[in-house]
Structures are given as C-alpha cells and as structure tokens.
C-alpha cells in the first residue's frame, strides 16, 4: 500500500485554515524561520480518510479478531468508556487550570475522579494509597523502585540489589537498573514458581526488595507468597507486586493481603482501557502506608467540606515523575469500568478469565506439550519444542493462526519455556469463540503431523507475507525522506 507521501500532489488543497480576523500577517526575522516548508503530505480530506481507513483494515484488533495474546489481557474495551472520556468537561480541560489561583475549584470533577479511583484501587488491591501519575506499567515500575530507594535512604539502609524471578517481565530488571540497583535472578522450580530455597540462598541484608508477578508469567499462582514476604521483610526488603496479571485474581486475593508493599497496575489490562496499538496505557502505583510519604507529588486530598484539592506538601516525596496527574482520560475510562461492574462484576472478571484459560489448557493438552500440567490462572503456557523438532516452530504456528482469523498468542515468552506459546483468552470471549480457536490449534497439530513443511508459507491471507527482518535491521530505513525504497 502506498504511503501517504506517495499520494501527495503538489498544491492539492487540504484542510481549510480560516482567514485571519485580526488583520495583517506578522513577519518573523528570517534568522528565526525555516528555509523551506516541512514536507507534509498534500492530500484532500477524502484522500486522508481513505488512507487511514484502509490502513486500519490492515490490522487485527480485539474489535475484529480473537486476540489471546498472553500477558497482555486483550479484553473487550467497552464503548461507553470512550463516550465518557470524550465529554468536553474532561477532554477540553487544561491541566494547568488546576494550578491557577483557586485552581482546585476549577477542576473539582477531575480531582474527584482521581480521588475516587485511588480509593477504589486501594480497596481492590488492599493497599493504603495510590499515585495515579505513572503513564504506563513500566513507568509505574520505575516509580515504585524509586520509592523503594527513597524508603531505604530514609532509614539509612544500604541496599544493593533487587531480586527478580527468571520468569519476570523484561521491564522489571530494566526498571531496577535505571533506579540504580543491580538485580539477582532466581530460577523457577518444577512447579513453575520461584524456587524458595534458591531465594533463601541469595537473600541477604543487601536486598532492597523483591519484584514479583503473582500469578506469574507461567500463569501459576505462587501459594508460598506469604512465606516469601516474611523472608524478604525479615531483611527489611520490600515486596513489589507487578500487577500485570491482576486480572486473574480480582476479588479472590489482594496483593496487599499477600504481603506486598508496592503495587503497580496496568489499567489497560485489568481495567479494560484500550491498548491503542501499543499505548497509551496507565500504570498507577499503590503502597502501604509506611511508603506513602514517598509517593510522587502532587496528590489529591479531600477536605472536611467534601471538596478536593491538590496537595504538594509531602517533604519526603520522591518528587515529580510526570508533568501532571497521570493519563487522565485513561483513568476516567478505568473508573467508569469499575463503577459499572461494581463489587460483583469485578469478582466475576477473574473467575471467568481463569475458567476460560483452564478450559483451553484442558482441551489442548492432549495435542501440545504443557510446560506445567496443573491448574493455571488467567493464562496457560504451552511449549512447541516437540513440534520444533519437526521443523515447525512456535512462530510458524502463530502465523498459521493468523490465516485462521486469530491473532496469535504470545510466542517465545516467558523465556523460561522453550518455544513458548502463551495463551490468555480473558473473560470477555465466549465459549464459542474459544472453541473456534481450540479447533484451529488442533488443526495446526494435525497439519504438523502431515505436512510440516507448509508452515513456512503462512500467513497467506494477510496483505503481506513474512517480512525480512534482517534487512530491516541491516539496512535501516525509518524515515521516508531520508531513504526511499
């Protein structure tokens, strides 16, 4: 498909910018102006609408396809939250209004939403306070680790490293490193959870804390978690909960009750805000009250008269981690979702997410190798290692599924499972949709037996076949104007 630049015709009129109602055109000294206009496309509005509509049709999405991408919680994004986010009173609200004199009064609705979302998340996760500011999950992690550092500094603790299980998301070690800590990796045991004996070996007073996802990326709930928390707390380490997989345990278990001190959530996973083709997300961070003084500023407070205000008066705060109050319109969507579902609706989320995943596990385990054959939580990890011996790799099965009308599961993650295929159906898919996926997987299994060689040809139904990624990296072309194909 052509690029928008290739559809450009010199002097074709596009959007009509209104004529000035204030008279003469101001000239800036040439010293300060660009020598030629930016080479933006010259297309009509219709050209533009067609271009982007056609581009959109080259995507698989939750709206168009089952999207069982493990670890990403690709659930349905309810439309009413879009309507709400677009209400003028939110969409057109300038963030600096809150910082004008009496600014709190100009933004009461927004501050109330931030405050009440914080209260809801506290109850859902069993934490004492939240910052809504982090702009994504990884940003939340970084914020959480910086608070960990601030906590240890305030106590005069000299800490050196953070403990991370080998099944962790890649962002965990990256965040720790940026906050100035080294990391120590702990392997998984035969049950698929962190090996507690190995933890005991590595755990010393130098440990700032432990970062853990529970259930982990194998989709397995670690029921030794309370014991682990005790061990870590005994050396004055902090327990950090990566909330990426919270969807599985909503209403069944809370990180705060498991002994975690810091939690980050991904609103775009558990709380149904859209993934946007890779962002924007939101990654609020919750803490137990011992850590509350270190939360970033500003924080939203509630006065005796029921009004809300921005409070900057936290001398121990780690400071400013974002320009404003978080990805507000994402927070609005998440809060609307929480409000609609209520207590019971939220509890049902985890129940059905887990039921759906176990159903897939049960039906497919006859056909594909299960790394851990036991009850899983919201996702299940298979290994295509046996198929790989026949020359069909996880990636080939993924490409086959595309042709069958499914977005593939996550492949090659977690790194602890060879040829991993990680499936997360979420609670919003129907049994019928899931059955369709299961059947496609079984057909793949049969085809691997009969004709393994054809797998290299998939996908065939998409606008392009497999791209040459080596060429993309060796002959970098990331700017149309710099290098033309």
């Amino acid at each position: 498909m052509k690029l928008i630049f290739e559809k450009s015709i010199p002097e074709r009129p596009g959007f009509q910018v209104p004529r000035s109602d204030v008279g003469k055109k101001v000239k800036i000294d040439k010293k300060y102006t660009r020598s030629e206009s930016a080479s933006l496309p010259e297309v009509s509005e219709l050209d533009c609408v067609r271009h982007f509509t056609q581009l959109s049709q080259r995507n698989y999405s939750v709206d168009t396809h089952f999207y069982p991408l493990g670890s990403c919680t690709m659930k349905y994004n309810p439309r009413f939250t879009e309507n709400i986010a677009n209400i003028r009173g939110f969409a057109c609200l300038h963030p600096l209004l809150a910082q004008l004199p009496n600014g709190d009064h100009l933004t009461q609705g927004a501050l109330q939403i931030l405050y009440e979302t914080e209260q809801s998340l506290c109850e859902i996760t069993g934490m004492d306070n939240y910052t809504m500011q982090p702009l994504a999950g990884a940003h939340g992690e970084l914020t959480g680790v910086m608070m960990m550092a601030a906590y240890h500094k305030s106590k005069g603790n000299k800490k050196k490293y953070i403990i991370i299980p080998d099944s962790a998301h890649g962002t965990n070690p990256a965040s720790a490193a940026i906050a100035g800590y080294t990391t120590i990796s702990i392997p998984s045991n035969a049950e698929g959870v962190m090996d507690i004996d190995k933890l005991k070996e590595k755990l010393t007073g130098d440990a700032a804390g432990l970062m853990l996802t529970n259930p982990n990326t194998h989709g397995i709930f670690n029921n030794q978690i309370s014991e682990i928390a005790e061990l870590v707390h005994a050396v004055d380490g902090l327990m950090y909960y990566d909330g990426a997989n919270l969807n599985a345990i909503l209403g069944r278990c809370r990180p705060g009750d498991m002994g975690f001190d810091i939690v980050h959530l991904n609103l775009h996973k558990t709380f149904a805000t859209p993934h946007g083709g890779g962002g924007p997300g939101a990654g609020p961070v919750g803490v137990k009250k011992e850590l509350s003084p270190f939360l970033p500023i500003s924080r939203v407070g509630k006065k005796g008269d029921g009004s809300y205000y921005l409070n900057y008066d936290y001398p121990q705060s780690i400071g400013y981690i974002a320009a404003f109050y978080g990805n507000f319109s994402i927070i609005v969507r998440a809060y609307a979702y929480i409000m609609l579902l209520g207590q019971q609706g939220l509890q049902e989320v985890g129940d059905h997410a887990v039921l759906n995943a176990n159903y897939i596990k049960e039906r497919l385990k006859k056909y594909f190798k299960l790394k851990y054959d036991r009850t899983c939580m919201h996702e299940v990890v298979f290994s295509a290692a046996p198929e790989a011996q026949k020359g069909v790799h996880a990636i080939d099965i993924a490409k086959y599924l595309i042709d069958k009308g499914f977005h593939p599961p996550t492949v090659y993650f977690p790194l602890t499972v060879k040829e991993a295929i990680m499936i997360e159906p979420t609670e919003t898919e129907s049994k019928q949709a899931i059955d369709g996926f299961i059947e496609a997987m079984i057909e793949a299994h049969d085809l691997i037996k009969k004709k393994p060689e054809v797998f290299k040809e998939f996908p065939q139904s998409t606008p392009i076949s497999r791209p040459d990624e080596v060429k993309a990296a060796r002959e970098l072309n990331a700017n149309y104007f710099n290098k033309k194909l």
Partner: protein
Amino acid sequence: MNPYIANTKQDVKAMLDCLGITSIDDLFTDIKPQQQPRSFDLPKGKSEFEVVEEFYHLAAKNATVLTLFVGGGFYDHYVPAAVNSLISRGEFFTAYTPYQPECAQGTLQALYEFQSVICALTGMEIANASLYDGGSALYEAAMMALRITKKNRIIMDGGVSPIYRKILRTYTDNLDIEFVETPVVHGQSDREQINKLLNEKTAAVILQNPNFFGAIDDHADIVAQAHQKGALVIESVYPISLGLLKTPGEMDVDIVIGEGQSLGLPLNFGGPYLGFMATKEKYVRKMPGRIVGATVDGEGRRCFVNTLQAREQHIRREKATSNICTNVSLCAIQALMFLSVLGKEGLKQFAQLNLDKAEFARQELEKIDGVEVKRSSPTFNEFVVCLPRDANAVIAAMIDKGFAAGFPLSRYYKGMDNYMIVAVTEKRTKDEIMRFTECLKEILNTDDRRC
C-alpha cells in the same frame, strides 16, 4: 452482574464438565484461606446509562467554559473532525503492539509515516515511534546524551519548562549527574554563561524553542560551541511552531524532543499526551523507544516491522537503553492524522494564524495603562505580560469574568509575582481577545483591594 462476560450458565457448566470440576472455586484452591481478601468492599454495579449520567455530572464540575489563554507547553488547538473520526476506528485503538507484523501493517505503516513527519517537521534524520510525553522524552534524551558522550555534566537553560526540569531532577536523583542551570537574559538563552560552563565533562546542553516564556531563538551558535567541547545539544520544541520556525536540524541540534499534544490531541487534563524524539542517524542505536523500519516481504512487497529491537527491555532486560515497554502509538497516529489533514500549506497557515492572533493580543494588551508586554525577543503564540499588581489576584478576578487569562510565573519563578504568560492560539477570535483586554482593563482600573 458483569455484562461483558459472554459465558452462559450452560457454557460454564460445559467447561466445568470438561475440567472435571463442579465449581469455579475449584480453580482457585492454590489461594489459601489466609490469602483471601480481608475486604473487597466496593459499591454495587450500575447500569451503563447511570454511569454515563454520573460522569456528565462530574464533567460539569470542571470549568471548561473558561476562554483559555493558558498554554505553558499545552495548547488549546482546533482538531479537524476527520482526525477524531479516524482515530476512533477500533482497528487502531483495540489493537496492541505490532508483534505480528503481517496482521499489524496498519499500525506499523502509520508509525513509519509518523516517524517521517516528525523528521520533516524537525529537520532531523531519524525519529522513534514516540515516548510517553514531552517530560519523559526530555529525561530519555538526557540519558541518551550521557550514554553517547560517557560524560556527566548537563547544562540546563532556564528557558526549559520548569515542569520538565522538576521531572528530570526526580529521575536523576540516584545517578551521578552534575546539573547546572543558566538564567534567561532578555528572554533568550544566556550564551555567555553557557560558554563558560561548557567543559570537557559536559554531556549535553538542554535548550527549548520557543522557551517557557514564549521567546524564539536561533540556537545554531550554542550548538557550534557545544560541539567544539564534545557536548551534545538537546532541544525541546513546540511542533506547531515548526510550521514557521527554523528547525533544530538547521541548527545542527543532536537530539530533538517535544510534547506532541498540540498535534491534534485533546488537553485531557494532562494526558495521554505524546512524547516524540528525533536524532541524527549515527546515534540511532543509543535512542530509546520503538522504531519502525521499512523492509520487504517474501514476495518483495514493501512492508514495515519493529526494528533494532535488540536495544529494548524485552531482549536486553537490565542492559536496555530504557525501561520503556510501550510507546503511545495511538497518540502518534492521531498526530500523523492531524498533520496529514492539515498538510504542508495548512500547517504553515495554522502556525501563521497563531502568530498573528498572538501579536494582535499583544498589541491590544500593550494599550492598557500599566501593562507591559516584554518585547526584548520575538515570540510565537505565547508571551510574558507584566502587570501593575500581583498576577495571581488578577488571574483570579479574570476567572470570575470567564477567562483563564494566563499562567502566573510566580508558581515556578521567584520574584516574578506580577508576571503571567499568555497563550493565544488560532481558536481565539478577535472578539474574545477584545473582551479579554476589556475585562483586564476593567479589573486593573477598579480599586477593589482583592486585586
């Protein structure tokens, strides 16, 4: 009841039968009784229309009726209807990171086009597929400069947004970095100070154009000086202004970052916004964030993939160039749509209209007795106004008249009690500007002690 769960009772029963269990509870036996929630006390669920009503009610408590003359790096620009319509397509907003390029060419090609328009706007060679926002982009740029130069001094121009400077301080608190800040003289960067502070240890000079006070500048001389000392220059830019202004590329700047909210994104009370970053090709491997590259498929057809992924956290883990996982794809695509709808001439005219309206407002404000508009350097669509009394009081009084008149500089700068910055975008009509100046005149003429 959760209306988004599709399973019927029969479906549930069939699945439980398949699993050989009788209740969903049987799937949660790993969670021990003492690990069960001590409380889960949330309100009852509501119907969709009850929730929508409640949010309309909440939205009404926000003063979006005020006529906006507040900017500070975040602007009230018009968004063409086509942009909102196109970005609402579920194929864009309900997709995820394009891990499987064959079924994500829509997102990938759009991001490639986004990178290209950012390069066209800034005059740089290569851009990434976006970062969280302008503030995090500045932090990432600073870290990138430290990686490239392996030095640790950073010179920060006083004209760089104080909001961003605070963020940068938070992130670098645990790291070995020496920050030095230089003041603004006559609205522009202090060349003399910067030259004095530039030494062999300097990793980067951070500048902003137009700066926080709205002044525009040509930083080519500072860039040349910095390069002589082996330091890089990072510049934060306001993309709408680049419809007219000299590009960072023309000034030989090394890393350009900016807040892309002005490119068709709603103000949204602070986010989501759009950080962008562009640099010279020789620095690409030190650049954080996703990059989409062009290549060919098996049949030789052009297509697009995430490339140079080896820099990223999911591969390099603790050695990654950044801990960033996502970009803000949807916001980047929205900005691309905005720039495509506006087009080459459109953006220029759009920028010119901002300039003209701001100049008109400046002239009208200057006519008021006791009001001084700083003219020591040219500006784009925002400028500093010196009032005869405390700006906070004046702004408060203007709010009562229906105007968000400007942002008080005293919030971030000591001793600037009587100053505010006023932003005038293309959306402000002549009538609004005239009423704004009338009201201000009235307020300044009253003896009301409140002001």
